[in-house]
């Protein structure tokens, strides 16, 4: 079996997540070659074949052109699977490649079981096993689901070039907002999820954080709704934290949230839903109404 792995490069640097693709290929027992749009001084440490397009010419975000470059690599390599990370680069580009080749795409694979791909669904509460109906397929893999594999060595480079006029023009990056709290330093984080119900309840969660000498965290909907500042957001599009104690209050446990906190030493979740996926990473799942439990706990700690 042959895989063509699509590496990632951003703001002039190879992204470490590229090595998760190699971990996936190993789990699949497949031979792999890599494709990347990058600069020659930022190549992955990998001894196989590398299809390389120059980022100076092809741009970091130019999906129409990158699709054509990947197509060239596919023509030469004839892989069974074309594998992307399920990332802002991967989920944007993968369907374009699948459509061009008219082959199946299986999105956000988290495991391989008995030759089939397992993917999350229903906000991570359930799983599906999926089988491509086409001979070749495009796959995207869940961030953090497969081990980082850094084989070392230097690649045999095959250069690719293409030119294409596109109706999309990349303008540039906008940096993340400056943080007013550095959650990474906190020993205790108490996080408000959508289950707290309303903005007026945020101080109740904050009070427990203070009682434990910790910081307030927030899930994304709480930030999007303007209840808490973005600098408190935990997850793939917020901060990654690993405190001694993480208390998730009314957080369902979506993969993008878990990615930011699952390495915490001890995790307590308060949720009224016994089946909430946060239970998969929690050391203790307290099945309760968060607005009853949290004030009671803060009061008890205060005594």
């Amino acid at each position, binding site marked *: 079996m042959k895989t063509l792995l699509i590496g990632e490069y951003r703001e002039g640097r190879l992204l470490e997540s590229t090595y998760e693709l190699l971990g996936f290929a190993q789990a699949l027992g497949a031979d792999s070659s890599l494709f990347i749009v990058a600069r020659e001084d930022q190549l992955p440490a990998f001894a196989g074949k590398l299809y390389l397009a120059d980022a100076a010419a092809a741009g970091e975000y130019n999906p129409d052109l990158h699709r054509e470059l990947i197509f060239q690599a596919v023509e030469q390599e004839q892989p069974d699977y074309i594998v992307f990370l399920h990332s802002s680069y991967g989920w944007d580009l993968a369907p374009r490649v699948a459509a061009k080749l008219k082959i199946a795409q*299986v999105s956000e694979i988290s495991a391989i079981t008995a030759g089939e791909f397992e*993917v999350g669904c*229903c906000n991570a509460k359930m799983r599906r096993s999926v089988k491509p109906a086409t001979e070749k397929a495009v796959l995207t893999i869940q961030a953090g689901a497969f081990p980082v594999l850094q084989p070392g060595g230097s690649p045999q480079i095959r250069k690719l070039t293409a030119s294409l006029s596109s109706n999309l023009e990349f303008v540039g*990056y906008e940096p993340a907002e400056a943080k007013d709290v550095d959650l990474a330093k906190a020993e205790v984080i108490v996080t408000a999820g959508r289950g707290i119900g309303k903005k007026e309840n945020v101080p109740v969660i904050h009070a427990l954080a203070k009682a434990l000498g910790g910081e307030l965290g927030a899930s994304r909907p709480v930030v999007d709704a303007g209840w808490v500042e973005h600098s408190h957001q935990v997850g793939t599009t917020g901060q990654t934290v690993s405190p001694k104690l993480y208390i998730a209050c009314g957080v369902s446990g979506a993969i993008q949230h878990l990615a930011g906190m699952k390495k915490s030493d001890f995790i307590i979740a308060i949720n009224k839903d016994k089946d909430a996926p946060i239970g998969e990473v929690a050391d203790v799942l307290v099945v309760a109404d968060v607005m009853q439990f949290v004030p009671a706990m803060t009061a008890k700690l205060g005594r």
Partner: protein
Amino acid sequence: MKLLVCVKQVPDMESRFKPDSRGVWFSETDLAWRMNEYDEYAVEEAVKLREQLGESCELTVLSIGPDRVGEVIKKALAMGADRAVHVQDLDAAGKDPWQIASIIAGYAKEQSYDIIFTGMQSQDRGSAQVGVLVAELLGFTCATTLVGFAFADGVITAKRELEGGLKGVAKLQIPAVVTCQLGLNIPRYPTLPNIMKAKRKEIAAIPVTELLKEEPLAATTSFHPPAKKGGGVVLEGDVGELVEKVIAILKDKTAVLR
């Protein structure tokens, strides 16, 4: 200008999911339904653009599914869409993203839309494919995961969300498809007068067989709960007792209360 927004009806994610009789998707018994969260942002953004452009602009909402999807169509109309298309399909849930995209593109290709809005993914299926596939099938420009959208002089300025809070800005010529991410805007609640007004708006019904010409490219073979990792304790009962238990566990297992 002609705008299209595609919406999906999904179950409330706090539901208990059980496999259906085929074992490949969830059973619909006892589920409450709502508009896919990502699509709410798509509808809001489309309605805002419709308001910006005024009477020269028309916004259509499209949904695929059985009769129950009429609810999300009505919601989008009450939020400000002008008209609707209901693609009637009793087995929309059994179709793969390629087929769903083909249905949408099959309808849209006769309509010469300028901008198509979709959510970046659905909450139940989560494939994040349909919007991009529609763009590819129609030959439209496309950008995904928008947390910023502006339209002026025929050009879209799209702000894409990347990892760790970084954003990427791109300019797109129309016709284009944009897929909307959480937080793009604050979706409005339909007001009572607008709900009443929406009742008079046109909903065209089209049987799916008129639009679908494609076979699926992938198949679901099983729908099941995740394998239990175990290890965690589940505590239930009286709140006062739960607090006592949790504090005892904190003293025992962590250093934070010492």
